Protein backbone atom coordinates (compact mmCIF):
# COMPACT_ATOMS: atom_id res chain seq x y z
CA UNK A 1 0.00 0.00 0.00
CA UNK A 2 1.26 3.42 -0.86
CA UNK A 3 2.43 5.39 2.13
CA UNK A 4 1.10 8.91 2.37
CA UNK A 5 3.79 11.58 2.14
CA UNK A 6 2.28 13.61 4.93
CA UNK A 7 -0.08 12.48 7.61
CA UNK A 8 -1.37 14.29 10.66
CA UNK A 9 -2.90 12.50 13.62
CA UNK A 10 -5.18 14.36 16.03
CA UNK A 11 -3.09 17.48 15.55
CA UNK A 12 -3.84 20.30 17.95
CA UNK A 13 -2.62 23.83 18.34
CA UNK A 14 -3.94 25.97 21.16
CA UNK A 15 -2.89 29.55 21.70
CA UNK A 16 -2.99 31.17 25.09
CA UNK A 17 -5.07 34.31 25.17
CA UNK A 18 -6.05 36.57 28.05
CA UNK A 19 -9.59 35.22 28.05
CA UNK A 20 -8.67 31.54 27.80
CA UNK A 21 -7.26 28.95 25.48
CA UNK A 22 -7.87 29.60 21.78
CA UNK A 23 -8.40 26.35 19.92
CA UNK A 24 -6.95 27.24 16.50
CA UNK A 25 -6.47 23.68 15.34
CA UNK A 26 -8.42 21.11 17.30
CA UNK A 27 -7.77 17.50 16.42
CA UNK A 28 -7.16 17.42 12.68
CA UNK A 29 -6.23 14.10 11.05
CA UNK A 30 -5.37 14.27 7.37
CA UNK A 31 -3.38 12.37 4.76
CA UNK A 32 -1.78 13.57 1.56
CA UNK A 33 -0.43 11.07 -0.97
CA UNK A 34 2.66 11.78 -2.99
CA UNK A 35 2.08 13.96 -6.02
CA UNK A 36 -1.41 14.95 -4.90
CA UNK A 37 -2.94 18.24 -3.85
CA UNK A 38 -5.03 18.53 -0.74
CA UNK A 39 -7.10 21.70 -0.65
CA UNK A 40 -7.94 23.20 2.72
CA UNK A 41 -10.93 25.54 2.62
CA UNK A 42 -12.56 27.58 5.28
CA UNK A 43 -13.38 31.12 6.27
CA UNK A 44 -11.09 33.50 8.08
CA UNK A 45 -10.26 32.32 11.55
CA UNK A 46 -10.99 28.65 10.95
CA UNK A 47 -7.37 27.68 11.58
CA UNK A 48 -6.30 26.77 8.06
CA UNK A 49 -3.10 28.84 8.05
CA UNK A 50 -2.23 27.67 11.56
CA UNK A 51 -2.63 24.08 10.39
CA UNK A 52 -0.23 24.69 7.49
CA UNK A 53 2.32 26.24 9.81
CA UNK A 54 2.08 23.53 12.44
CA UNK A 55 2.62 20.83 9.81
CA UNK A 56 5.95 22.29 8.73
CA UNK A 57 6.81 23.23 12.32
CA UNK A 58 6.84 26.97 11.91
CA UNK A 59 4.60 26.75 14.96
CA UNK A 60 4.94 24.05 17.61
CA UNK A 61 1.94 21.76 17.94
CA UNK A 62 0.19 21.42 21.30
CA UNK A 63 -0.57 17.74 20.77
CA UNK A 64 -0.76 15.14 18.03
CA UNK A 65 1.61 13.85 15.38
CA UNK A 66 2.84 14.92 11.97
CA UNK A 67 4.25 12.03 9.97
CA UNK A 68 6.45 12.78 7.00
CA UNK A 69 7.11 9.57 5.07
CA UNK A 70 6.06 7.68 8.17
CA UNK A 71 8.29 9.47 10.69
CA UNK A 72 6.96 11.79 13.35
CA UNK A 73 8.77 15.06 12.68
CA UNK A 74 7.42 16.71 15.80
CA UNK A 75 9.96 14.62 17.74
CA UNK A 76 12.90 15.75 15.60
CA UNK A 77 15.64 17.81 17.21
CA UNK A 78 17.03 21.02 15.76
CA UNK A 79 19.53 19.36 13.46
CA UNK A 80 17.18 16.75 12.13
CA UNK A 81 14.59 19.46 11.57
CA UNK A 82 17.10 21.53 9.69
CA UNK A 83 17.50 18.72 7.19
CA UNK A 84 13.74 18.33 6.97
CA UNK A 85 13.32 21.96 5.92
CA UNK A 86 14.71 21.04 2.54
CA UNK A 87 11.84 18.65 2.02
CA UNK A 88 9.06 21.01 3.04
CA UNK A 89 8.60 24.58 1.91
CA UNK A 90 5.91 27.21 2.11
CA UNK A 91 4.58 29.87 -0.25
CA UNK A 92 3.01 32.75 1.63
CA UNK A 93 -0.13 34.69 0.93
CA UNK A 94 1.19 38.18 0.63
CA UNK A 95 3.90 38.51 -2.00
CA UNK A 96 4.38 42.11 -0.86
CA UNK A 97 5.30 41.23 2.69
CA UNK A 98 7.09 37.92 2.31
CA UNK A 99 10.05 39.17 0.29
CA UNK A 100 12.91 41.13 1.82
CA UNK A 101 12.77 44.59 0.22
CA UNK A 102 16.54 45.04 0.53
CA UNK A 103 17.49 41.93 -1.41
CA UNK A 104 17.54 41.57 -5.17
CA UNK A 105 15.58 38.88 -6.90
CA UNK A 106 18.65 36.69 -7.39
CA UNK A 107 19.71 37.07 -3.75
CA UNK A 108 16.23 36.05 -2.58
CA UNK A 109 16.19 32.92 -4.72
CA UNK A 110 19.81 32.01 -3.91
CA UNK A 111 19.38 32.36 -0.15
CA UNK A 112 17.81 28.96 0.57
CA UNK A 113 20.51 27.30 -1.58
CA UNK A 114 23.24 29.01 0.45
CA UNK A 115 21.61 28.47 3.84
CA UNK A 116 21.21 24.77 3.16
CA UNK A 117 24.68 24.55 1.58
CA UNK A 118 23.32 22.77 -1.46
CA UNK A 119 25.82 24.39 -3.81
CA UNK A 120 28.98 26.18 -2.79
CA UNK A 121 30.42 27.45 -6.01
CA UNK A 122 29.18 30.93 -6.95
CA UNK A 123 28.89 30.15 -10.63
CA UNK A 124 26.86 27.04 -9.89
CA UNK A 125 24.49 28.98 -7.65
CA UNK A 126 24.03 31.59 -10.33
CA UNK A 127 23.29 28.91 -12.88
CA UNK A 128 20.72 27.36 -10.59
CA UNK A 129 19.04 30.74 -9.95
CA UNK A 130 18.86 31.38 -13.69
CA UNK A 131 17.30 28.00 -14.22
CA UNK A 132 14.75 28.56 -11.45
CA UNK A 133 13.81 31.91 -12.95
CA UNK A 134 13.17 30.16 -16.26
CA UNK A 135 11.08 27.53 -14.54
CA UNK A 136 8.73 30.03 -12.98
CA UNK A 137 8.67 32.35 -15.99
CA UNK A 138 10.70 35.33 -14.78
CA UNK A 139 12.66 37.14 -17.50
CA UNK A 140 16.45 37.11 -17.05
CA UNK A 141 16.64 40.88 -17.29
CA UNK A 142 14.96 41.10 -13.89
CA UNK A 143 17.76 39.25 -12.10
CA UNK A 144 19.04 42.34 -10.28
CA UNK A 145 15.64 43.94 -9.62
CA UNK A 146 14.29 44.59 -6.16
CA UNK A 147 10.82 43.35 -5.16
CA UNK A 148 9.28 46.84 -5.20
CA UNK A 149 10.03 47.15 -8.90
CA UNK A 150 7.84 44.16 -9.69
CA UNK A 151 4.08 43.62 -9.75
CA UNK A 152 2.18 41.17 -7.53
CA UNK A 153 2.18 38.30 -10.02
CA UNK A 154 5.93 38.48 -10.56
CA UNK A 155 6.54 38.73 -6.82
CA UNK A 156 4.53 35.59 -6.27
CA UNK A 157 6.66 33.89 -8.94
CA UNK A 158 9.74 34.78 -6.87
CA UNK A 159 8.08 33.23 -3.83
CA UNK A 160 7.52 30.06 -5.82
CA UNK A 161 11.09 30.01 -7.17
CA UNK A 162 12.41 30.46 -3.63
CA UNK A 163 10.32 27.53 -2.39
CA UNK A 164 11.52 25.35 -5.29
CA UNK A 165 15.18 26.27 -4.81
CA UNK A 166 15.82 23.45 -2.34
CA UNK A 167 13.91 20.88 -4.42
CA UNK A 168 11.30 20.10 -1.78
CA UNK A 169 8.87 17.20 -1.92
CA UNK A 170 6.09 19.03 -0.15
CA UNK A 171 4.92 22.63 -0.39
CA UNK A 172 2.37 24.35 1.80
CA UNK A 173 0.69 27.02 -0.33
CA UNK A 174 -0.97 29.50 2.01
CA UNK A 175 -3.42 31.51 -0.11
CA UNK A 176 -0.82 32.01 -2.85
CA UNK A 177 -3.21 33.68 -5.30
CA UNK A 178 -5.61 35.57 -3.04
CA UNK A 179 -3.81 38.89 -3.39
CA UNK A 180 -3.75 38.76 -7.19
CA UNK A 181 -6.16 39.90 -9.90
CA UNK A 182 -8.06 37.13 -11.66
CA UNK A 183 -6.12 37.23 -14.91
CA UNK A 184 -2.81 37.02 -13.01
CA UNK A 185 -4.25 34.47 -10.60
CA UNK A 186 -4.98 32.18 -13.55
CA UNK A 187 -1.38 32.49 -14.77
CA UNK A 188 0.00 31.48 -11.37
CA UNK A 189 -2.43 28.58 -10.94
CA UNK A 190 -1.44 27.20 -14.34
CA UNK A 191 2.24 27.55 -13.40
CA UNK A 192 1.75 25.71 -10.12
CA UNK A 193 -0.08 22.85 -11.82
CA UNK A 194 2.64 22.53 -14.49
CA UNK A 195 5.35 22.44 -11.83
CA UNK A 196 3.52 19.76 -9.91
CA UNK A 197 3.34 17.60 -13.01
CA UNK A 198 7.00 18.10 -13.91
CA UNK A 199 8.50 17.66 -10.46
CA UNK A 200 5.99 15.38 -8.77
CA UNK A 201 5.35 17.92 -6.02
CA UNK A 202 2.85 17.42 -3.26
CA UNK A 203 0.82 20.47 -2.31
CA UNK A 204 -1.28 21.47 0.61
CA UNK A 205 -3.27 24.32 -0.88
CA UNK A 206 -4.88 26.63 1.68
CA UNK A 207 -7.48 29.05 0.40
CA UNK A 208 -10.85 30.59 1.09
CA UNK A 209 -11.71 30.65 -2.61
CA UNK A 210 -13.78 27.61 -3.45
CA UNK A 211 -13.51 27.84 -7.20
CA UNK A 212 -9.71 27.96 -6.98
CA UNK A 213 -9.59 25.01 -4.62
CA UNK A 214 -11.82 22.91 -6.83
CA UNK A 215 -9.65 23.67 -9.80
CA UNK A 216 -6.34 22.69 -8.26
CA UNK A 217 -7.13 19.97 -5.69
CA UNK A 218 -7.47 16.21 -5.86
CA UNK A 219 -8.96 16.09 -2.43
CA UNK A 220 -10.52 18.81 -0.29
CA UNK A 221 -10.85 19.21 3.46
CA UNK A 222 -13.34 21.77 4.75
CA UNK A 223 -12.47 23.36 8.08
CA UNK A 224 -14.70 25.12 10.57
CA UNK A 225 -13.35 26.57 13.84
CA UNK A 226 -10.25 24.41 14.00
CA UNK A 227 -11.84 21.15 12.98
CA UNK A 228 -12.11 19.32 9.72
CA UNK A 229 -15.83 18.91 9.12
CA UNK A 230 -15.75 17.22 5.73
CA UNK A 231 -13.18 15.54 3.54
CA UNK A 232 -13.77 14.16 0.06
CA UNK A 233 -12.33 13.95 -3.44
CA UNK A 234 -12.77 17.31 -5.11
CA UNK A 235 -15.57 16.37 -7.54
CA UNK A 236 -17.55 14.50 -4.92
CA UNK A 237 -17.43 17.37 -2.49
CA UNK A 238 -18.91 19.75 -5.03
CA UNK A 239 -21.48 17.31 -6.43
CA UNK A 240 -22.63 15.90 -3.14
CA UNK A 241 -21.69 18.02 -0.15
CA UNK A 242 -22.86 16.37 3.05
CA UNK A 243 -22.06 18.57 6.03
CA UNK A 244 -24.54 21.43 6.49
CA UNK A 245 -21.65 23.89 6.66
CA UNK A 246 -20.19 22.70 3.36
CA UNK A 247 -23.63 23.00 1.79
CA UNK A 248 -24.02 26.54 3.05
CA UNK A 249 -20.53 27.46 1.94
CA UNK A 250 -21.11 26.14 -1.57
CA UNK A 251 -24.44 27.86 -1.97
CA UNK A 252 -22.93 31.17 -0.83
CA UNK A 253 -20.55 31.42 -3.78
CA UNK A 254 -21.75 33.92 -6.33
CA UNK A 255 -21.43 32.22 -9.73
CA UNK A 256 -20.51 34.26 -12.80
CA UNK A 257 -23.59 33.13 -14.73
CA UNK A 258 -27.20 34.20 -14.87
CA UNK A 259 -28.62 30.69 -14.65
CA UNK A 260 -29.26 30.79 -10.93
CA UNK A 261 -30.22 34.42 -10.68
CA UNK A 262 -33.28 34.92 -8.58
CA UNK A 263 -33.11 31.43 -7.06
CA UNK A 264 -33.34 31.53 -3.33
CA UNK A 265 -30.06 30.30 -1.90
CA UNK A 266 -29.72 28.72 1.52
CA UNK A 267 -27.86 31.35 3.42
CA UNK A 268 -26.69 30.51 6.88
CA UNK A 269 -27.55 32.94 9.57
CA UNK A 270 -25.24 34.30 12.19
CA UNK A 271 -21.50 34.40 12.36
CA UNK A 272 -18.62 32.21 13.43
CA UNK A 273 -18.64 31.68 17.18
CA UNK A 274 -15.59 32.27 19.33
CA UNK A 275 -12.75 29.72 19.22
CA UNK A 276 -11.80 30.56 22.80
CA UNK A 277 -12.68 27.68 25.16
CA UNK A 278 -15.32 26.30 22.78
CA UNK A 279 -18.06 24.23 24.43
CA UNK A 280 -18.17 20.54 23.57
CA UNK A 281 -20.20 19.37 20.63
CA UNK A 282 -20.32 20.31 16.98
CA UNK A 283 -18.74 23.72 16.48
CA UNK A 284 -21.23 24.54 13.76
CA UNK A 285 -24.31 23.67 15.82
CA UNK A 286 -25.18 27.28 16.82
CA UNK A 287 -25.67 28.17 13.13
CA UNK A 288 -26.86 24.81 11.86
CA UNK A 289 -30.46 24.44 10.68
CA UNK A 290 -30.44 20.74 11.60
CA UNK A 291 -28.95 21.12 15.07
CA UNK A 292 -30.54 19.26 17.96
CA UNK A 293 -29.57 19.01 21.59
CA UNK A 294 -27.57 15.91 20.83
CA UNK A 295 -25.18 17.95 18.69
CA UNK A 296 -24.12 19.99 21.69
CA UNK A 297 -23.31 17.08 24.01
CA UNK A 298 -20.05 15.69 22.70
CA UNK A 299 -17.56 16.28 19.92
CA UNK A 300 -18.44 14.73 16.63
CA UNK A 301 -15.80 12.84 14.69
CA UNK A 302 -15.35 12.35 10.98
CA UNK A 303 -17.52 9.46 9.87
CA UNK A 304 -17.18 7.53 6.67
CA UNK A 305 -20.11 8.54 4.53
CA UNK A 306 -19.02 7.26 1.14
CA UNK A 307 -16.08 5.63 -0.57
CA UNK A 308 -13.55 8.28 0.30
CA UNK A 309 -16.04 10.73 1.65
CA UNK A 310 -15.97 11.67 5.32
CA UNK A 311 -18.20 14.08 7.21
CA UNK A 312 -18.31 15.11 10.84
CA UNK A 313 -22.04 15.32 11.28
CA UNK A 314 -24.53 13.42 13.32
CA UNK A 315 -26.85 13.28 10.31
CA UNK A 316 -24.62 10.72 8.64
CA UNK A 317 -23.65 8.48 11.51
CA UNK A 318 -26.90 6.60 11.73
CA UNK A 319 -27.89 5.92 8.20
CA UNK A 320 -29.52 9.28 7.59
CA UNK A 321 -29.54 9.98 3.89
CA UNK A 322 -28.54 13.24 2.35
CA UNK A 323 -31.65 15.19 1.52
Amino acid at each position, binding site marked *: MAQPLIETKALKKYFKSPSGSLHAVDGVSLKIDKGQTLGIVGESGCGKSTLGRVIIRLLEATAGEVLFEGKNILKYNRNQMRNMRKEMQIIFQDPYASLNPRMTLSEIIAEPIKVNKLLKNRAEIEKRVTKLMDTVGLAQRLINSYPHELDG*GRKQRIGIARALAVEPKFIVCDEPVSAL*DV*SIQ*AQILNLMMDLQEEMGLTYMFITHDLSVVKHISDEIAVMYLGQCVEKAPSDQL*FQNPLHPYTKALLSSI*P*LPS*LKNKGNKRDII*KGEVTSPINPPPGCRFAPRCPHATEECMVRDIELIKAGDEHFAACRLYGRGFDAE
Partner: protein
Amino acid sequence: MSQTLLNIKNLYVNYETDEETVRALNGVNLKLNKGEMLGLVGETGAGKTTTALSILKLLPKDIGIITNGQIEFDGKDLTKLKEAELRNIRGERISMIFQDPMTSLNPVLTVGEQIAEVIELHKTLDKKQIESKVNEMLELVGIPAKRKKEFPHQFSGGMKQRVIIAMALSCDPELLIADEPTTALDVTIQAQVLNMMEELKHKLNTAMLLITHDLGVVAQICDKVAIMYAGEIIESGTAEDIFEAKEHHPYTVGLFGSIPNLIEKTNRLKPILGLMPDPTDLPQGCKFHPRCPQCMEICRKVHPDDRQTETHTIKCHLYK
Protein backbone atom coordinates in the same frame (compact mmCIF):
# COMPACT_ATOMS: atom_id res chain seq x y z
CA MET B 1 -40.11 55.00 -19.13
CA SER B 2 -36.91 54.85 -17.17
CA GLN B 3 -35.25 58.15 -16.49
CA THR B 4 -31.56 58.81 -16.71
CA LEU B 5 -30.15 59.62 -13.29
CA LEU B 6 -26.43 59.68 -13.92
CA ASN B 7 -24.81 60.34 -17.26
CA ILE B 8 -21.03 60.43 -17.51
CA LYS B 9 -19.85 61.76 -20.86
CA ASN B 10 -16.35 61.40 -22.20
CA LEU B 11 -14.67 61.74 -18.81
CA TYR B 12 -10.89 62.13 -18.61
CA VAL B 13 -9.04 62.15 -15.29
CA ASN B 14 -5.31 62.56 -14.78
CA TYR B 15 -3.26 62.23 -11.63
CA GLU B 16 -0.48 64.73 -11.96
CA THR B 17 2.63 64.53 -9.85
CA ASP B 18 5.93 66.33 -10.24
CA GLU B 19 7.46 63.48 -12.17
CA GLU B 20 4.69 62.04 -14.25
CA THR B 21 1.10 62.12 -15.38
CA VAL B 22 -1.00 59.05 -14.70
CA ARG B 23 -3.84 58.82 -17.18
CA ALA B 24 -6.43 57.13 -14.99
CA LEU B 25 -9.58 57.71 -17.03
CA ASN B 26 -9.55 58.04 -20.79
CA GLY B 27 -13.00 58.88 -22.10
CA VAL B 28 -15.47 57.09 -19.85
CA ASN B 29 -19.09 57.05 -20.95
CA LEU B 30 -21.57 55.64 -18.49
CA LYS B 31 -25.31 55.92 -18.05
CA LEU B 32 -27.38 54.86 -15.10
CA ASN B 33 -31.16 55.02 -14.89
CA LYS B 34 -33.24 55.59 -11.79
CA GLY B 35 -33.57 52.49 -9.62
CA GLU B 36 -31.05 50.50 -11.61
CA MET B 37 -28.11 48.48 -10.37
CA LEU B 38 -25.00 48.82 -12.51
CA GLY B 39 -21.92 46.68 -11.95
CA LEU B 40 -18.61 48.30 -12.83
CA VAL B 41 -16.06 45.51 -13.26
CA GLY B 42 -12.33 45.59 -13.80
CA GLU B 43 -8.99 44.61 -12.35
CA THR B 44 -6.75 46.62 -10.04
CA GLY B 45 -5.82 49.89 -11.67
CA ALA B 46 -8.55 49.85 -14.31
CA GLY B 47 -9.99 53.14 -13.01
CA LYS B 48 -13.09 51.90 -11.22
CA THR B 49 -12.50 53.74 -7.98
CA THR B 50 -11.33 56.87 -9.81
CA THR B 51 -14.66 56.91 -11.65
CA ALA B 52 -16.52 56.74 -8.34
CA LEU B 53 -14.39 59.41 -6.71
CA SER B 54 -14.82 61.80 -9.61
CA ILE B 55 -18.60 61.56 -9.40
CA LEU B 56 -18.42 62.83 -5.82
CA LYS B 57 -15.48 65.08 -6.59
CA LEU B 58 -13.43 63.36 -3.93
CA LEU B 59 -10.31 63.04 -6.08
CA PRO B 60 -7.11 63.92 -4.21
CA LYS B 61 -6.81 67.69 -4.18
CA ASP B 62 -4.51 69.29 -6.75
CA ILE B 63 -3.36 65.88 -7.96
CA GLY B 64 -6.48 64.26 -9.37
CA ILE B 65 -7.74 66.52 -12.16
CA ILE B 66 -10.75 66.15 -14.40
CA THR B 67 -9.34 67.30 -17.73
CA ASN B 68 -12.39 66.81 -19.89
CA GLY B 69 -15.97 65.59 -19.86
CA GLN B 70 -19.19 65.98 -17.93
CA ILE B 71 -20.88 64.15 -15.10
CA GLU B 72 -24.58 64.87 -15.30
CA PHE B 73 -26.58 63.96 -12.25
CA ASP B 74 -30.30 64.52 -12.59
CA GLY B 75 -29.61 67.03 -15.36
CA LYS B 76 -26.96 69.05 -13.49
CA ASP B 77 -23.27 68.91 -14.37
CA LEU B 78 -21.46 67.96 -11.16
CA THR B 79 -18.07 69.02 -12.49
CA LYS B 80 -19.26 72.66 -12.56
CA LEU B 81 -20.79 72.80 -9.10
CA LYS B 82 -19.27 74.76 -6.23
CA GLU B 83 -18.03 73.05 -3.08
CA ALA B 84 -21.04 74.27 -1.03
CA GLU B 85 -23.53 72.96 -3.58
CA LEU B 86 -21.69 69.65 -3.71
CA ARG B 87 -21.91 69.30 0.03
CA ASN B 88 -25.69 69.21 -0.28
CA ILE B 89 -25.47 66.38 -2.73
CA ARG B 90 -22.84 64.26 -1.04
CA GLY B 91 -24.34 61.96 1.54
CA GLU B 92 -27.85 63.21 0.81
CA ARG B 93 -28.56 62.51 -2.83
CA ILE B 94 -25.44 60.48 -3.65
CA SER B 95 -23.72 58.46 -0.98
CA MET B 96 -20.84 56.09 -1.02
CA ILE B 97 -19.82 52.86 0.70
CA PHE B 98 -16.09 52.26 0.84
CA GLN B 99 -14.31 48.98 0.50
CA ASP B 100 -12.86 48.48 3.91
CA PRO B 101 -15.44 48.39 6.69
CA MET B 102 -12.66 48.22 9.28
CA THR B 103 -11.24 51.63 8.51
CA SER B 104 -14.23 53.68 7.36
CA LEU B 105 -15.86 53.95 10.78
CA ASN B 106 -14.69 56.29 13.51
CA PRO B 107 -13.40 54.13 16.37
CA VAL B 108 -14.17 56.64 19.13
CA LEU B 109 -17.83 57.27 18.32
CA THR B 110 -20.67 54.81 18.84
CA VAL B 111 -22.29 53.55 15.67
CA GLY B 112 -25.52 55.31 16.64
CA GLU B 113 -23.74 58.67 16.85
CA GLN B 114 -22.13 58.09 13.49
CA ILE B 115 -25.43 57.38 11.78
CA ALA B 116 -27.07 60.33 13.57
CA GLU B 117 -24.34 62.65 12.31
CA VAL B 118 -25.33 62.09 8.69
CA ILE B 119 -28.98 62.75 9.42
CA GLU B 120 -28.23 65.86 11.49
CA LEU B 121 -26.16 67.35 8.70
CA HIS B 122 -28.71 66.91 5.97
CA LYS B 123 -32.18 66.93 7.53
CA THR B 124 -33.91 69.33 9.85
CA LEU B 125 -35.21 66.95 12.45
CA ASP B 126 -35.37 67.21 16.22
CA LYS B 127 -33.47 64.90 18.52
CA LYS B 128 -36.28 62.44 18.97
CA GLN B 129 -36.92 62.12 15.27
CA ILE B 130 -33.23 61.55 14.62
CA GLU B 131 -33.15 58.87 17.29
CA SER B 132 -36.04 57.01 15.76
CA LYS B 133 -34.53 57.33 12.29
CA VAL B 134 -31.28 55.79 13.59
CA ASN B 135 -33.23 52.89 15.07
CA GLU B 136 -35.13 52.47 11.85
CA MET B 137 -31.95 52.37 9.76
CA LEU B 138 -30.26 49.80 12.01
CA GLU B 139 -33.30 47.53 11.92
CA LEU B 140 -33.39 47.92 8.14
CA VAL B 141 -29.95 46.38 7.77
CA GLY B 142 -30.66 43.66 10.31
CA ILE B 143 -28.98 45.02 13.42
CA PRO B 144 -30.98 45.22 16.66
CA ALA B 145 -31.49 48.93 17.46
CA LYS B 146 -30.22 48.48 21.02
CA ARG B 147 -26.71 47.92 19.67
CA LYS B 148 -26.46 51.58 18.57
CA LYS B 149 -24.65 52.39 21.80
CA GLU B 150 -21.78 50.09 20.92
CA PHE B 151 -18.49 51.04 19.31
CA PRO B 152 -17.23 49.76 15.95
CA HIS B 153 -14.71 47.36 17.50
CA GLN B 154 -17.57 45.49 19.13
CA PHE B 155 -18.94 44.56 15.72
CA SER B 156 -17.70 41.89 13.32
CA GLY B 157 -16.67 42.71 9.75
CA GLY B 158 -20.04 41.84 8.26
CA MET B 159 -21.88 43.85 10.92
CA LYS B 160 -19.63 46.89 10.37
CA GLN B 161 -20.39 46.77 6.67
CA ARG B 162 -24.11 46.74 7.56
CA VAL B 163 -23.60 49.81 9.76
CA ILE B 164 -21.92 51.59 6.86
CA ILE B 165 -24.75 50.66 4.53
CA ALA B 166 -27.24 51.97 7.09
CA MET B 167 -25.31 55.22 7.27
CA ALA B 168 -25.18 55.56 3.50
CA LEU B 169 -28.91 54.97 3.15
CA SER B 170 -30.02 57.14 6.04
CA CYS B 171 -30.88 60.16 3.87
CA ASP B 172 -32.65 58.09 1.21
CA PRO B 173 -30.11 58.86 -1.52
CA GLU B 174 -31.07 58.55 -5.17
CA LEU B 175 -27.69 57.04 -6.00
CA LEU B 176 -25.55 54.76 -3.89
CA ILE B 177 -21.97 54.11 -4.95
CA ALA B 178 -20.60 50.92 -3.42
CA ASP B 179 -16.86 50.38 -3.89
CA GLU B 180 -16.13 46.66 -3.43
CA PRO B 181 -18.59 46.44 -0.53
CA THR B 182 -18.13 42.72 0.08
CA THR B 183 -14.51 42.11 -0.91
CA ALA B 184 -13.22 42.13 2.65
CA LEU B 185 -15.88 39.70 3.86
CA ASP B 186 -16.04 35.90 4.02
CA VAL B 187 -18.30 34.17 1.50
CA THR B 188 -21.07 33.24 3.88
CA ILE B 189 -21.14 36.79 5.24
CA GLN B 190 -20.84 38.18 1.70
CA ALA B 191 -23.92 36.19 0.74
CA GLN B 192 -25.81 37.70 3.67
CA VAL B 193 -24.78 41.26 2.75
CA LEU B 194 -25.53 40.78 -0.97
CA ASN B 195 -28.97 39.40 -0.19
CA MET B 196 -29.66 42.35 2.03
CA MET B 197 -28.52 44.83 -0.62
CA GLU B 198 -30.81 43.21 -3.16
CA GLU B 199 -33.77 43.40 -0.80
CA LEU B 200 -33.02 47.04 -0.04
CA LYS B 201 -32.92 47.82 -3.74
CA HIS B 202 -36.47 46.53 -4.13
CA LYS B 203 -37.64 48.29 -0.98
CA LEU B 204 -36.08 51.72 -1.49
CA ASN B 205 -35.68 51.92 -5.26
CA THR B 206 -32.21 53.44 -4.96
CA ALA B 207 -29.98 53.36 -8.02
CA MET B 208 -26.70 51.68 -7.33
CA LEU B 209 -23.25 51.75 -8.88
CA LEU B 210 -21.52 48.60 -7.66
CA ILE B 211 -17.78 48.52 -8.15
CA THR B 212 -16.26 45.08 -8.00
CA HIS B 213 -13.72 42.73 -9.52
CA ASP B 214 -15.92 39.71 -8.91
CA LEU B 215 -18.08 38.73 -11.87
CA GLY B 216 -19.99 36.35 -9.64
CA VAL B 217 -21.25 39.19 -7.46
CA VAL B 218 -22.27 41.13 -10.55
CA ALA B 219 -24.19 38.19 -12.02
CA GLN B 220 -26.14 37.89 -8.83
CA ILE B 221 -27.42 41.38 -8.28
CA CYS B 222 -26.80 43.71 -11.22
CA ASP B 223 -29.16 44.69 -14.05
CA LYS B 224 -26.44 46.25 -16.13
CA VAL B 225 -22.72 45.71 -16.41
CA ALA B 226 -19.80 47.84 -17.62
CA ILE B 227 -16.32 46.39 -17.97
CA MET B 228 -13.33 48.70 -17.57
CA TYR B 229 -9.79 48.35 -18.82
CA ALA B 230 -7.05 50.96 -18.63
CA GLY B 231 -9.41 53.83 -17.93
CA GLU B 232 -12.00 53.02 -20.57
CA ILE B 233 -15.26 51.15 -20.64
CA ILE B 234 -14.52 48.46 -23.20
CA GLU B 235 -17.82 46.66 -23.03
CA SER B 236 -21.18 47.42 -21.49
CA GLY B 237 -24.74 46.23 -21.65
CA THR B 238 -27.44 44.44 -19.72
CA ALA B 239 -26.43 41.46 -17.58
CA GLU B 240 -27.80 39.21 -20.35
CA ASP B 241 -25.58 40.94 -22.93
CA ILE B 242 -22.44 40.37 -20.87
CA PHE B 243 -23.11 36.90 -19.53
CA GLU B 244 -25.03 35.30 -22.38
CA ALA B 245 -24.46 37.10 -25.71
CA LYS B 246 -22.08 35.57 -28.26
CA GLU B 247 -19.97 38.59 -29.16
CA HIS B 248 -17.58 39.99 -26.60
CA HIS B 249 -14.53 42.14 -26.27
CA PRO B 250 -11.45 39.86 -26.14
CA TYR B 251 -10.67 41.23 -22.67
CA THR B 252 -14.08 40.15 -21.38
CA VAL B 253 -13.46 36.70 -22.85
CA GLY B 254 -10.09 36.58 -21.06
CA LEU B 255 -11.65 37.68 -17.79
CA PHE B 256 -14.20 34.87 -17.93
CA GLY B 257 -11.51 32.39 -19.00
CA SER B 258 -9.47 33.24 -15.93
CA ILE B 259 -12.14 32.21 -13.44
CA PRO B 260 -11.99 28.55 -12.44
CA ASN B 261 -15.32 26.97 -13.29
CA LEU B 262 -17.27 25.48 -10.41
CA ILE B 263 -19.73 23.57 -12.51
CA GLU B 264 -17.76 22.11 -15.38
CA LYS B 265 -14.41 20.41 -15.14
CA THR B 266 -11.64 22.42 -16.74
CA ASN B 267 -8.05 21.28 -16.89
CA ARG B 268 -6.27 24.51 -17.59
CA LEU B 269 -7.33 28.07 -17.19
CA LYS B 270 -7.03 30.37 -20.15
CA PRO B 271 -5.49 33.48 -18.63
CA ILE B 272 -4.83 36.76 -20.39
CA LEU B 273 -1.12 36.91 -21.11
CA GLY B 274 0.97 39.83 -19.94
CA LEU B 275 0.07 42.66 -17.62
CA MET B 276 -2.05 45.80 -17.50
CA PRO B 277 -0.39 48.65 -19.36
CA ASP B 278 1.40 51.31 -17.35
CA PRO B 279 -1.04 54.24 -17.04
CA THR B 280 1.82 56.73 -17.40
CA ASP B 281 2.72 55.22 -20.75
CA LEU B 282 -0.36 53.83 -22.46
CA PRO B 283 -0.02 52.03 -25.80
CA GLN B 284 -1.11 53.57 -29.08
CA GLY B 285 -4.34 52.43 -30.70
CA CYS B 286 -6.42 49.99 -28.69
CA LYS B 287 -5.08 49.85 -25.13
CA PHE B 288 -5.59 46.12 -24.94
CA HIS B 289 -3.72 45.26 -28.14
CA PRO B 290 -0.39 44.15 -26.58
CA ARG B 291 -2.25 41.41 -24.65
CA CYS B 292 -4.95 40.64 -27.20
CA PRO B 293 -4.92 37.19 -28.85
CA GLN B 294 -6.89 38.58 -31.82
CA CYS B 295 -4.82 41.69 -32.39
CA MET B 296 -4.84 43.04 -35.97
CA GLU B 297 -2.78 45.62 -37.78
CA ILE B 298 -5.36 48.35 -37.29
CA CYS B 299 -5.48 47.75 -33.49
CA ARG B 300 -1.91 48.98 -33.10
CA LYS B 301 -2.64 52.34 -34.71
CA VAL B 302 -6.27 53.33 -34.48
CA HIS B 303 -8.25 53.65 -31.30
CA PRO B 304 -11.47 51.66 -31.72
CA ASP B 305 -14.90 53.27 -31.47
CA ASP B 306 -17.91 51.89 -29.69
CA ARG B 307 -20.11 49.59 -31.64
CA GLN B 308 -23.64 49.68 -30.36
CA THR B 309 -26.33 47.07 -30.93
CA GLU B 310 -29.45 47.90 -28.96
CA THR B 311 -28.21 47.72 -25.37
CA HIS B 312 -24.82 46.10 -25.94
CA THR B 313 -21.72 48.23 -26.60
CA ILE B 314 -18.27 46.86 -27.50
CA LYS B 315 -15.16 48.92 -28.09
CA CYS B 316 -13.21 46.70 -30.49
CA HIS B 317 -12.13 46.62 -34.15
CA LEU B 318 -13.36 43.04 -34.47
CA TYR B 319 -16.92 44.27 -34.61
CA LYS B 320 -18.05 46.80 -37.15
